[in-house]
């Protein structure tokens, strides 16, 4: 929009553009309330308004928009999962991602880099072959490649990993991408707000009003709201909400940490993941290396970060790229990952009528942001679970019908 830019430049006033309306007061009632202003909650609000005409909706966020795991994640987007349910779901998400900057009229810096999951052992190679076959069957671009292809894509990589863990091959996934996380929250938030959804920051849900097994409203730090439909999309806070609702889930919270280096000239074009070395790394459009490792080993409900993490991660990164020895880590942080036993999410209806859950996103939920919003909006509007999320229902645990995704999800985000 160059004309608008010119007008802005020539004008005497330069107001900070507001991304979304910030109504002063909560209304006494809404058709639906979404708890959590992360990517998932805001995407659900967007699709509720856009595809189901439901606009009398409030999104309640205890902190600031995108300040949860959305704004803390390392933004790897891919669909080369292990189960047919997972592959179909994440592939539908990748298809939405590809056009999302256009749709939301905001540059999400969606950047397709290709994604290598490195294998250092024969058993890892076996899992890669298995995943490649499932992926191809489902029409997802995914293949096992040898060391020569990896070395050609990343000449700086020490293929022996300092002699500890020689690379035997990799699962290569061409659509693997990264995106700018905050922009995703803002983009969905702005678009939802333009259609009438009301977004409230610094507004915490403190209790649920449940009558005869049905949701009747929510109590918040700013008063009570009546509503017949509530979506909980609070990631690491999910057990606190399900406790308010009076039922248990298999979700356990573990911190997941990440860090970035000082910026460098672009040299790493792809996304690299190593399960054996517990590392994943990509280079952001600002030039920083964005790096993460595996989960902290025990339950903690806090976003503290540790020296152990940077030490361990740095030593593994140096096994792969010894030339980085002089590069500084400039920031580290943590999010609270809502882990499930089968590494698949928990989506859909709950024992409380009118209360819907979008949770169990652990270390892998950013890539699902658009499709989870779309499928949860459908589920909430029609009171019928979307067909893509059948394998993710909470009842699967009671039915002993798990959706075993661990082979594709652990470390490899």
């Amino acid at each position, binding site marked *: 929009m160059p004309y608008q830019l010119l007008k802005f430049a020539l004008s005497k006033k330069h107001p900070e553009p507001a991304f979304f309306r910030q109504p002063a007061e909560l209304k006494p009632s809404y058709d639906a309330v979404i708890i959590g202003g992360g990517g998932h909650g805001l995407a659900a609000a967007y699709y509720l308004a856009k595809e189901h005409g439901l606009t009398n909706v409030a999104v309640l966020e205890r902190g600031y928009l995108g300040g949860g795991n959305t704004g803390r994640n390392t933004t790897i987007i891919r669909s080369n999962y292990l189960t047919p349910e997972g592959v179909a779901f994440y592939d539908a998400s990748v298809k939405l991602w590809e056009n999302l900057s256009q749709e939301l009229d905001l540059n999400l810096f969606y950047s397709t880099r290709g994604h290598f999951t490195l294998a250092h052992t024969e058993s890892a190679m076996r899992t890669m072959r298995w995943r490649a076959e499932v992926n191809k069957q489902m029409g997802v671009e995914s293949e096992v490649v040898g060391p020569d292809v990896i070395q050609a894509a990343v000449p700086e990589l020490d293929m022996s990993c300092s002699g500890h863990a020689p690379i035997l091959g990799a699962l290569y996934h061409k659509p693997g991408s990264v995106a700018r996380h905050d922009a995703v929250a803002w983009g969905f938030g702005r678009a939802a707000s333009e259609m009438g959804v009301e977004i409230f920051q610094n507004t915490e849900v403190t209790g649920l009003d449940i009558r005869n097994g049905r949701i009747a409203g929510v109590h918040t730090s700013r008063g009570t709201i009546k509503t017949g439909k509530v979506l909980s999309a609070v990631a690491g806070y*999910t*057990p*606190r909400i*399900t*406790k308010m609702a009076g039922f*248990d*889930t*298999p*979700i*356990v*919270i573990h911190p997941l940490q990440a860090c970035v280096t000082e910026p460098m000239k672009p040299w790493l074009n792809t996304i690299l993941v190593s399960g054996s070395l517990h590392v994943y790394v990509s280079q952001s459009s600002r030039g920083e290396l964005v790096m993460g490792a595996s989960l902290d*080993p*025990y*339950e*903690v*409900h*806090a976003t*503290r970060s540790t020296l*152990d993490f940077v030490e361990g991660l740095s030593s593994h990164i140096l096994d792969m790229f010894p030339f980085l020895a002089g590069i500084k880590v400039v920031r580290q942080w943590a999010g609270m990952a809502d882990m499930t*036993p089968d590494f698949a999410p928990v989506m859909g209806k709950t024992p409380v009528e009118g209360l819907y859950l979008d949770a169990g996103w652990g270390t892998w939920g950013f890539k699902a942001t658009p499709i989870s919003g779309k499928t949860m909006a459908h589920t909430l509007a029609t009171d019928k679970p979307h067909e893509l999320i059948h394998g993710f229902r909470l009842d699967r*645990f*009671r039915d*002993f019908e798990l959706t075993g995704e661990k082979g594709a999800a652990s470390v490899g985000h």
Partner: protein
Amino acid sequence: MKLLTCPINGPRPLEEFAYGGEIREMPDPQTCSDSAWADYVFHRDGAPGPKREWWYHVPSGTWLVAERDTASDVVSRTYLLGEA
């Protein structure tokens, strides 16, 4: 360095320990219902707060009980099972 007190070996670096999860009563698998078993295996109150947990001191092979607040990560007590 974070320390945890092993009832046998005294305060030791946390890296020497493995986490065994919350202590939960196991129903009798022969007689309980499928849904009670699913509850035991999968479902839990995952909200933050004080919990009784299994921890394992790896070098000495000692299983111990720790009382830990999962919100603050502060351990208030460790002991051997049965010594509570």
